[in-house]
């Protein structure tokens, strides 16, 4: 699909994604607001610039793969997929409802186009990304694998098993993106379980480590391009983000990790996002 590098376009797309996220979660009455808002700029950058993909041909064999390891931020994925034309935006309001294709966590068996993996149990997505990247190498394919992780998710040991194997097989066709918002359900990551020194951890596991401002389209896109140049190593981008980004009144507030706005709050959020 056609890519855009225009900051204005991406801003507009991310705003639309955020507004839809708020509508969806408020309508559902449950869901993960904070992380979904915090990732909107990264998702807009990925789906409207970085990824090679065909919304009208979701199974296109040469597409880049995006694994959402943190299934709980499904709303930002769904809103982005709809924005990109994978399905009609009307369907977004069916989130978390009975018989919906928009399950609380991504579920391929419900038939929503554009989902690469049914996921929701933390710490599994990077292994799947490794399997895909191994396959691309074996079959001499050029598609790239992106996997999206939470920072709290990195507390799962299986992430580091996967990290070790990606470096062992020199999988330079994987880019892991860490949503480094310093928050998880119980509070600040530094208090729940310290992740620092995070750069050094990934480096020690054999990865090339990048950092970017997860709310700067130019920085996200440039860093993804840099990451793709890696010759021998898998790459990780530690994207500094704010949970709840765009809604000033809840920014950086871990209490909004898994909380849905009421109808009144949603109205206020959308007002803030539209300003």
């Amino acid at each position, binding site marked *: 699909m056609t890519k855009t590098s225009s900051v204005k376009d991406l801003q507009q797309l991310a705003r639309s994604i955020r507004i839809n996220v708020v509508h969806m979660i408020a309508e559902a009455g449950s869901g993960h607001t904070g992380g979904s808002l915090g990732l909107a700029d990264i998702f807009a950058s990925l789906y409207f610039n970085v990824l090679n993909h065909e919304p009208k041909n979701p199974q296109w064999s040469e597409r880049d793969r995006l694994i959402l390891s943190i299934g709980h931020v499904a709303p930002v994925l769904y809103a982005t997929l709809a924005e990109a034309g994978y399905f009609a935006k009307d369907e977004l309001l069916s989130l978390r409802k009975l018989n919906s294709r928009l399950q609380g966590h991504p*579920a*391929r*068996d419900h038939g929503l186009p554009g989902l*690469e*993996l*049914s*996921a*929701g*149990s933390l*710490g*599994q*997505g*990077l*292994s*799947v*990304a*490794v*399997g*895909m*990247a*191994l*396959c*691309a190498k*074996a*079959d001499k394919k050029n598609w790239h694998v992106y996997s999206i992780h939470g920072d709290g998710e990195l507390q799962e*040991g*299986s992430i580091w*098993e*996967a990290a*070790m*194997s990606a470096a*062992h*097989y020199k999988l330079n066709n994987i880019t892991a993106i860490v949503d480094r918002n310093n928050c998880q359900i119980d509070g600040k990551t530094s208090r729940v379980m310290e992740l620092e020194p995070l750069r050094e951890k990934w480096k020690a596991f054999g990865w090339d480590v990048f950092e970017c401002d997860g709310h700067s389209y130019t920085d996200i896109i440039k860093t993804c391009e840099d990451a793709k140049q890696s010759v021998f190593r898998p790459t990780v981008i530690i994207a500094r983000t704010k949970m709840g980004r765009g809604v000033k009144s809840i920014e950086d507030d871990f209490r909004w990790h898994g909380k849905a706005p009421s109808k009144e709050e949603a109205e206020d959020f959308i007002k803030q996002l539209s300003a």
Partner: protein
Amino acid sequence: MPEKQLINRGNVATSVGFGEGLLQAGEANPLIVALGADITASVKVSPFAEKFPRRFYSLGIAEQNCVGVAAGLALSGKIPVFATYSAFASMRTLDQIRVSVCFNNLHIVIGGAHAGISVGPDGATHQALEDIAVMRVLPNMTVISPCDATQTRLVTIAALNELKGPVYIRYGREPMPDFTDETTPFETGKGQLLKDGTDVTIIATGHLVWEALEAAYALEKEDIHARVINIHTIKPIDQDIIIQAAKETGAIVTAEEHQICGGFGSAVAEVVAKNYAVPIEFIGMNDCFGESGQPSELMEKYGMTAIHIMLAVKKVLTSGNKVIEWNI
């Protein structure tokens, strides 16, 4: 059904059948790949790995990652086989198998090696006695427990070539009687009538199928005519052959080298209880861990031999609406 008594052509470990099946299927289908968690030779993946080094991925002692990587390979079009000791293959990895494999309904063959107490001297940690229960509760999963090396080879080929979705195959380490042949053709999902009988049915899986046959042949001498059925595909289970046995023989003994609780006997009992209730006796591990010892010593101590099956047959024949008391 075989007309003659089945004979043991010699003891062979079922793991050998798995290794041969994997190699044979791999030669025919280039999409098949294998993953290793360090014990490749022991779980008999080595012949494949040596023949097809580019289709074998060594991933170290990291079973959870192995399963996730298998999922990624399957999502990209490969047919991955991941084998390790069944205790780890089925339980260390349970969450990954549940979500990344079963929920995504991916065609992956998981080999559970060293299953059962016949692993022997390694002791309880390495004697998987819970894997059938844990694997059969997962939606989309096919669970297979072949009875000898010949059948394990056929099962492995069928799992890779014919089946869809996730498959768990359980196999053992100790050389055990190899007795199935062209008179007992293998078909996934179908139970096998190995000996006819009218008084009682012994329904067995895995290593205990041979013990069941020995028990049944011995019972003939006491004028008890036991039917013997091999259920290799525990899920989805062959309901018809079980219901027919319940109706025609009126009593059932199940036999497995696994915990009774939640395992193969429970699967049979679910079918019987729902469709045609008859008395059932269960041979298997009785809610305890194993220990070190020679395989035959352990099978004896924990009650999983032909003699124990014979005693269970006599007990089930006296239960329910029958009033005779046997001294056993």
